[in-house]
Protein backbone atom coordinates (compact mmCIF):
# COMPACT_ATOMS: atom_id res chain seq x y z
CA UNK A 1 0.00 0.00 0.00
CA UNK A 2 1.10 3.51 -0.69
CA UNK A 3 2.34 5.26 2.44
CA UNK A 4 3.82 8.55 3.53
CA UNK A 5 6.37 8.88 6.32
CA UNK A 6 7.45 11.97 8.18
CA UNK A 7 10.44 10.91 10.29
CA UNK A 8 10.46 13.96 12.56
CA UNK A 9 7.63 14.28 15.07
CA UNK A 10 8.81 17.59 16.53
CA UNK A 11 11.23 20.23 15.30
CA UNK A 12 12.24 23.35 17.19
CA UNK A 13 13.77 26.18 15.22
CA UNK A 14 14.78 29.74 16.07
CA UNK A 15 12.96 32.59 14.41
CA UNK A 16 14.89 33.64 11.32
CA UNK A 17 16.60 30.29 10.94
CA UNK A 18 16.00 27.92 8.04
CA UNK A 19 13.59 25.01 8.26
CA UNK A 20 13.50 21.67 6.49
CA UNK A 21 10.80 19.06 7.06
CA UNK A 22 11.30 15.58 5.72
CA UNK A 23 8.78 13.46 3.86
CA UNK A 24 9.28 10.06 2.28
CA UNK A 25 6.79 8.13 0.19
CA UNK A 26 6.59 4.49 -0.65
CA UNK A 27 7.25 3.13 -4.12
CA UNK A 28 4.59 3.69 -6.75
CA UNK A 29 3.85 5.38 -10.05
CA UNK A 30 4.50 9.10 -10.36
CA UNK A 31 3.23 10.36 -7.04
CA UNK A 32 1.06 13.38 -6.55
CA UNK A 33 2.46 14.94 -3.38
CA UNK A 34 1.34 17.76 -1.16
CA UNK A 35 2.20 19.66 1.96
CA UNK A 36 -0.51 20.95 4.26
CA UNK A 37 -0.23 23.16 7.33
CA UNK A 38 -2.53 23.03 10.32
CA UNK A 39 -2.38 25.89 12.78
CA UNK A 40 -3.72 25.22 16.29
CA UNK A 41 -7.46 24.72 16.20
CA UNK A 42 -7.60 25.30 12.47
CA UNK A 43 -8.26 23.20 9.40
CA UNK A 44 -5.84 22.00 6.75
CA UNK A 45 -4.38 24.59 4.43
CA UNK A 46 -2.59 23.55 1.24
CA UNK A 47 0.96 24.93 1.07
CA UNK A 48 2.08 23.44 -2.21
CA UNK A 49 1.71 20.48 -4.54
CA UNK A 50 3.70 18.40 -6.99
CA UNK A 51 2.17 16.61 -9.95
CA UNK A 52 4.91 16.55 -12.58
CA UNK A 53 7.48 18.74 -14.29
CA UNK A 54 9.85 20.97 -12.35
CA UNK A 55 10.95 19.11 -9.24
CA UNK A 56 11.28 22.29 -7.19
CA UNK A 57 7.85 23.68 -6.42
CA UNK A 58 7.01 26.98 -4.81
CA UNK A 59 4.14 27.40 -2.41
CA UNK A 60 2.49 29.98 -0.26
CA UNK A 61 4.03 31.68 2.77
CA UNK A 62 7.55 31.42 1.35
CA UNK A 63 7.68 27.61 1.39
CA UNK A 64 9.18 25.40 -1.28
CA UNK A 65 9.59 21.67 -1.70
CA UNK A 66 11.82 19.48 -3.81
CA UNK A 67 10.74 16.17 -5.29
CA UNK A 68 13.58 13.64 -5.48
CA UNK A 69 12.53 10.39 -7.10
CA UNK A 70 15.86 8.70 -6.36
CA UNK A 71 15.34 9.26 -2.65
CA UNK A 72 11.55 8.91 -2.64
CA UNK A 73 11.44 12.23 -0.85
CA UNK A 74 9.52 15.49 -0.97
CA UNK A 75 11.08 17.72 1.67
CA UNK A 76 9.63 21.07 2.60
CA UNK A 77 11.88 24.06 3.16
CA UNK A 78 11.73 27.67 4.22
CA UNK A 79 14.84 29.88 4.29
CA UNK A 80 13.77 32.02 7.25
CA UNK A 81 10.96 31.06 9.61
CA UNK A 82 8.60 33.46 11.30
CA UNK A 83 6.89 32.93 14.65
CA UNK A 84 3.62 32.48 12.74
CA UNK A 85 5.04 29.34 11.08
CA UNK A 86 4.60 27.43 14.35
CA UNK A 87 2.10 24.76 13.37
CA UNK A 88 1.80 21.13 12.39
CA UNK A 89 2.83 20.20 8.88
CA UNK A 90 1.51 17.21 6.98
CA UNK A 91 2.86 15.62 3.86
CA UNK A 92 0.24 13.78 1.81
CA UNK A 93 -0.05 11.66 -1.30
CA UNK A 94 -3.02 11.63 -3.62
CA UNK A 95 -4.35 8.32 -4.83
CA UNK A 96 -6.51 8.65 -7.91
CA UNK A 97 -8.42 5.47 -7.10
CA UNK A 98 -10.96 6.74 -4.62
CA UNK A 99 -9.58 10.27 -4.97
CA UNK A 100 -8.21 10.08 -1.48
CA UNK A 101 -5.26 11.54 0.33
CA UNK A 102 -2.91 9.49 2.47
CA UNK A 103 -1.26 11.61 5.12
CA UNK A 104 2.00 11.29 6.96
CA UNK A 105 2.03 11.45 10.73
CA UNK A 106 2.82 15.15 10.79
CA UNK A 107 5.69 17.25 12.11
CA UNK A 108 5.02 19.80 14.82
CA UNK A 109 7.18 22.91 14.41
CA UNK A 110 7.95 25.11 17.39
CA UNK A 111 9.54 28.51 16.76
CA UNK A 112 11.78 30.00 19.45
CA UNK A 113 12.10 33.79 19.71
Amino acid at each position, binding site marked *: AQSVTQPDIHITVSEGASLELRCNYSYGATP*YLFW*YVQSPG*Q*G*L*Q*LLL*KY*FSGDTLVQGIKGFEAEFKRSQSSFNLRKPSVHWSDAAEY*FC*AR*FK*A*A*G*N*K*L*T*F*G*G*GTRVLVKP
Partner: protein
Amino acid sequence: EPEVTQTPSHQVTQMGQEVILRCVPISNHLYFYWYRQILGQKVEFLVSFYNNEISEKSEIFDDQFSVERPDGSNFTLKIRSTKLEDSAMYFCASSTSTGQENLFYGYTFGSGTRLTVV
Protein backbone atom coordinates in the same frame (compact mmCIF):
# COMPACT_ATOMS: atom_id res chain seq x y z
CA GLU B 1 -12.44 32.34 -2.27
CA PRO B 2 -14.94 29.47 -2.05
CA GLU B 3 -14.93 27.57 1.24
CA VAL B 4 -16.09 24.28 2.63
CA THR B 5 -18.17 25.04 5.71
CA GLN B 6 -18.58 22.64 8.63
CA THR B 7 -20.97 22.87 11.54
CA PRO B 8 -20.80 22.71 14.45
CA SER B 9 -17.17 23.54 15.19
CA HIS B 10 -17.40 21.63 18.47
CA GLN B 11 -19.78 18.88 19.55
CA VAL B 12 -19.92 17.07 22.84
CA THR B 13 -22.08 13.98 23.00
CA GLN B 14 -22.72 11.13 25.38
CA MET B 15 -21.52 7.65 24.53
CA GLY B 16 -24.21 5.72 22.68
CA GLN B 17 -25.88 8.81 21.27
CA GLU B 18 -26.27 9.51 17.57
CA VAL B 19 -24.46 12.49 16.14
CA ILE B 20 -24.67 14.19 12.76
CA LEU B 21 -21.84 16.32 11.46
CA ARG B 22 -22.72 18.74 8.73
CA CYS B 23 -20.79 20.10 5.80
CA VAL B 24 -21.56 22.48 2.96
CA PRO B 25 -19.15 21.69 0.12
CA ILE B 26 -18.13 24.17 -2.56
CA SER B 27 -21.11 24.61 -4.84
CA ASN B 28 -19.73 23.28 -8.14
CA HIS B 29 -17.86 20.35 -6.59
CA LEU B 30 -19.06 16.83 -7.24
CA TYR B 31 -16.83 14.68 -5.01
CA PHE B 32 -17.17 14.79 -1.24
CA TYR B 33 -15.06 13.29 1.52
CA TRP B 34 -14.78 12.81 5.24
CA TYR B 35 -11.49 12.48 7.07
CA ARG B 36 -10.79 12.26 10.78
CA GLN B 37 -7.87 13.06 13.02
CA ILE B 38 -7.71 11.52 16.47
CA LEU B 39 -5.78 13.78 18.82
CA GLY B 40 -2.06 13.37 18.26
CA GLN B 41 -2.49 11.04 15.31
CA LYS B 42 -2.44 11.36 11.54
CA VAL B 43 -5.32 12.49 9.38
CA GLU B 44 -7.16 9.40 8.11
CA PHE B 45 -9.45 8.95 5.14
CA LEU B 46 -12.95 7.76 6.02
CA VAL B 47 -15.08 7.88 2.90
CA SER B 48 -15.52 9.42 -0.54
CA PHE B 49 -18.91 10.09 -2.11
CA TYR B 50 -19.91 10.78 -5.69
CA ASN B 51 -23.16 10.74 -7.62
CA ASN B 52 -25.14 10.01 -4.46
CA GLU B 53 -23.22 6.94 -3.51
CA ILE B 54 -20.09 5.93 -1.65
CA SER B 55 -17.19 5.47 -4.07
CA GLU B 56 -14.66 4.28 -1.51
CA LYS B 57 -14.51 3.77 2.23
CA SER B 58 -11.81 2.82 4.69
CA GLU B 59 -11.91 0.02 7.23
CA ILE B 60 -12.70 2.65 9.86
CA PHE B 61 -16.00 3.41 8.14
CA ASP B 62 -18.02 0.56 9.61
CA ASP B 63 -21.78 0.12 9.98
CA GLN B 64 -21.90 2.78 12.68
CA PHE B 65 -21.09 5.41 10.06
CA SER B 66 -23.20 6.67 7.19
CA VAL B 67 -23.08 9.60 4.81
CA GLU B 68 -25.82 11.41 3.03
CA ARG B 69 -26.39 14.29 0.70
CA PRO B 70 -29.94 15.15 1.77
CA ASP B 71 -30.31 18.16 -0.53
CA GLY B 72 -28.32 20.06 -3.11
CA SER B 73 -25.98 21.71 -0.67
CA ASN B 74 -25.36 19.65 2.47
CA PHE B 75 -23.21 16.58 3.01
CA THR B 76 -23.56 14.84 6.37
CA LEU B 77 -21.71 12.22 8.38
CA LYS B 78 -23.80 10.29 10.88
CA ILE B 79 -22.41 8.18 13.68
CA ARG B 80 -25.23 5.99 14.94
CA SER B 81 -24.04 5.06 18.41
CA THR B 82 -20.95 6.97 19.41
CA LYS B 83 -18.06 5.38 21.24
CA LEU B 84 -15.31 7.03 23.25
CA GLU B 85 -12.84 6.23 20.48
CA ASP B 86 -14.89 8.26 18.00
CA SER B 87 -13.61 11.41 19.69
CA ALA B 88 -11.64 13.19 16.99
CA MET B 89 -11.55 16.15 14.65
CA TYR B 90 -13.64 15.38 11.58
CA PHE B 91 -12.80 17.13 8.35
CA CYS B 92 -15.04 17.43 5.33
CA ALA B 93 -13.54 18.06 1.89
CA SER B 94 -14.80 18.44 -1.64
CA SER B 95 -13.27 18.45 -5.11
CA THR B 96 -14.05 18.98 -8.76
CA SER B 97 -14.20 16.17 -11.23
CA THR B 98 -12.67 17.25 -14.50
CA GLY B 99 -9.53 15.20 -14.94
CA GLN B 100 -7.08 13.89 -12.41
CA GLU B 101 -5.05 17.05 -11.83
CA ASN B 102 -8.02 19.34 -11.98
CA LEU B 103 -9.75 17.05 -9.56
CA PHE B 104 -7.06 17.69 -7.04
CA TYR B 105 -6.80 21.41 -7.69
CA GLY B 106 -10.26 21.77 -6.30
CA TYR B 107 -9.63 19.59 -3.24
CA THR B 108 -10.55 21.84 -0.34
CA PHE B 109 -10.90 21.04 3.33
CA GLY B 110 -13.24 22.57 5.86
CA SER B 111 -12.07 23.76 9.27
CA GLY B 112 -13.31 20.65 11.00
CA THR B 113 -15.71 19.61 13.73
CA ARG B 114 -14.17 18.55 17.00
CA LEU B 115 -16.27 15.71 18.38
CA THR B 116 -15.87 14.76 22.01
CA VAL B 117 -17.64 11.64 23.27
CA VAL B 118 -18.04 11.48 27.04
